[in-house]
Every structure is written in C-alpha cells, then in structure tokens.
C-alpha cells in the first residue's frame, strides 16, 4: 500500500493545514436559518449551504444573498470586488448582509 499511503499522507497534510486550525480565519458563518448546515468553499471564499433539507442546498451565500451556482456568484459585481480584495478568503464580506456597492 506504499503508493496509496504516500498519496494519502499528502492529502492529510493539506487537510491538517486547512482544517480546524484555521477555522477562526474564515469569514463568519451566515446566520440565515433557512439553511441548517454550512460548509466553507475555499475556492469561492464563501459559505455554501450543505443542508439537504434546505431549499438553498448547494447554493452559495454572499453579502446576504443566495446564489444558485458558482457562475451566478461570479457574475455578482460586489463578489467580484471581494474576490479581488486583500480580504478575499480572510473574512471580509462573506457572512454579512451589506456588500458596499
């Protein structure tokens, strides 16, 4: 199992660095109760609804608004600003309801 083990060591190393230890650096989790479970999407830098019973399952939450797809999120001008900002993925904008533009 040397090859599989070697590969999984690399996987666990990344999970270790992006897991519990850095949760406090993420934007605050949305407080919108229409989704019971959130998961942070590291690529998009926003929270995604992971509650299968919610009508927003699989949607992204940014600036107080739900987006059905990553495409829709990327098309949203305030998100584009956020993505280019130094605060991207570091806590500004994602969980709040005010987008600033």
């Amino acid at each position, binding site marked *: *199992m*040397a*090859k*599989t083990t*070697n*590969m*999984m*060591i*690399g*996987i*666990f*190393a*990344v*999970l270790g660095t*992006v*897991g519990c230890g850095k949760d406090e650096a993420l934007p605050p989790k949305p407080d919108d109760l229409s989704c019971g*479970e959130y998961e942070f*999407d*590291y*690529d998009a830098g926003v929270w995604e609804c*992971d509650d*299968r019973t919610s009508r927003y399952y*699989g949607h992204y939450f940014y600036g107080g608004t739900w987006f059905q*797809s*990553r*495409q829709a999120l*990327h*098309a949203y001008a305030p998100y584009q600003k956020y993505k280019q900002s130094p605060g991207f993925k570091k806590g500004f904008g994602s969980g709040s309801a005010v987008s600033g533009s």
Partner: protein
Amino acid sequence: MSDRISFYNTIHDFWPDLYGQPYALYDVLLISKETTEQLRDASTRASHIFFKVASLLRRLDEETLLAMYYPKEAIPFLRLTSSLSESVIARLDFVESNEGFKVMELNADTPTFIKELFSVNKQVCAHFRCADVNEGEAYKLQMAVQEAVDISAGRDDAYIVFTAHEDNDEDRLTVLYLQQLYGKASRFVPLDKLQIIPHEGLYDEKGKKIDVLYRQTFPIESLLLDYDEAGAPIGQMLLSLVCAGKLKVINPPSAFLLQNKAVQAVIWGLHEERNSFFSDEEHEWIAKHFLPTYLEEDTFLMKRMPYVKKPIFGREGDTVELYDGKGSKTLEETQKSYEAYGFVYQQYVDLPVLQIDVNGQKQDGHMMYGSFLLNGRASSIGCRVGGKITNNVAYYLPLGIQKDEG
C-alpha cells in the same frame, strides 16, 4: 438494408455504426421511473462528493499531485479556478449491483455519448412510441453550454471556436451538436487547423485570435503529447496560454483535475478512515455508491477479491485488465493506448447481462449506465452494452420509461 440502418438514416448527422460495426441498436430498453430516480440520486450524491474533493486537490503540493500521476507539465494548469463549474458536462459511469448503483468512474474532462442521450434517444423513443427517459434535458444542456460560453467569453465580440478531430465522426458530430445548441456566433475549426503563437494566443487557420476554445472531445493528457513539426510542445504552450488568461477552455481546467481516476482512491482513502472532511451523510453516500479503489492491488489480494486494473487517464475500456482474487489476469482489453501513466485498482463488480438484438441476431451483452452531470446536476442517462469490459465498440442501447403498472 436492415431496419436499424433504415431508421437511423432518418437521423441526420449521426453515426449508427462505429469502426465499421453496428453501434446504435434498433431497440429500446424500458426502465422504471424508480430506476431512473435511483440513478439520478446516485449521480447527484457522487457529483457532490467529486466536486467537494476538487477544491482539496487544488491545494495539494506538487509531490502529492505527482503521486497521483498528474503530468508534471499540467500542474500549474490544475491549480487554476475558473468562473465555471468544476465540469460543465461530465459523465458518471455506473454499474447496477445487488447493493444499488456503484460509480465505476467519472469522465469529467471530455465525455462523449452526448448527442445519443440528449437528442437521438428522443427520436428512437418517439419511433417506438414510448416516453423518453431524458425528456427536457436537451434544453438544460443548451442552457449549460450557452452559460458556460458566455461566462468564459465575458464580452459580446469574443471569438468562440468549437474544435475536434475532423476525421473522427463521433467527435466532430458531437461537437457540432454542441455548437448548434450554443446557437450564437461561433465557428468550428478542426484541431489540426489551430495555430499557436507562444505567450500570445491561439489562432484559427485565417489568423484570427480565439478567445474561447470549446474542446469537448479533446483530452488534456492527449494535448500534452502534441508537438509541431519543429518539435515545439504546442500542447504545453496552449496550457500556458490558459494559465496566463489569454485563452479560456471548456471544459475548464478543473475537469482535468477530476478526470484522474486516482481521485476515487483519494475519496475511498478519506472514507476508510472516516475523515471529517466528509460529513456522516457523505460517508454514507460513499459507502453506498463508490467502490474501494487504491493505487495498488494489495488489499484485493489479501481479501482474495477480484479487481480491475484501470489506467489513470484511460477511456472506453482501453488498457483495462480484470483479475481474479489470486491476482491472475482473467481478461484484458486489446487496445493499450494508456500505459504511459499509472494505474488504479478497483473492486470488480459484474456488469448485469441482458439480451440484445443486433441486426436481427440475438446476443447477450453486459450493460452499464452513463449518467450526465450538467454543472454537477444529474441529467440525461443512457446505456451501453458490450463485453465484460465496456469498450469503444460497445453498443448504444436507447432507454425509455416503462408505463406505470396497474
């Protein structure tokens, strides 16, 4: 002329035969609504798992990516994110086992079988007077293609090119079908007519710069093997253009990230140790719909279980081998085009057998289901019937919906 050929001759721009052999069967397999729902549920769950892993893969160090057999030249390309879904059009391949539908693989980068399921299936079902299992999905495909191109283009005057090997009917006609669905200004330019100027751009045969390249049937790992007459690595140059933002490609780079079959070994490895990367529900989905997959055969030999050896970037059964629980080879595909990269080893599950009619001759075949994902959402489903290893000469068997009983 057979009924099969007479019928399929009425469908334009289709390929009822492939490689000089019958491909599309003149028949419909009727399946229950319940089966279609189970297959779509399995697709939705598997899609969620694969797409979740994509963001993890992009953060891996080079050493781990190489351990997964990604080509070194493609690594900067793999880390790119785009405004598109991880894969705009992907196809999951399932086997129906005693324990439900199990994923054999995800064809995330360059799946074909598109025109058959989204267009031809409807016409076959109308001919045999049954309900199309993929009713309404062609419109969703059109929306997905238009959205992907428009987002990639970013402006109205972008130059959109659809490309494929011109001499391959299946590839060319599949891509032309997608271009037709796109329905806006674009051109089809055969692969061999594309020209590249390093660090500047990709151009058509008339020297016009291309902004978006729709390459539905042209795999990245094949692209990396392309050199021009002077020996320049034009495939790598093209990926460099994508990395520099001078060209957009569809499917996006992340589709190649997920095309690697070692991704299934990553998913299974995380599942086996109940890693918290997946929720309890996701672990249940993996247990239900994924097959144990590793980078070596040790586990199967220890448990004396039959297994399949598959090339990391293989397609259409090419280079696949079957082994029994003692590690003896029981079957191998004669086509061996994908030995250059590494292999994964996956638990073997028998493909169900059914009787089919090929030009009036009854014969038994092994069946598997293909299930398309449009931006990760379950879409059209279809059936291939062939040998124990489903290869590029396996038949396309159209699917219809059984009428409700009672």
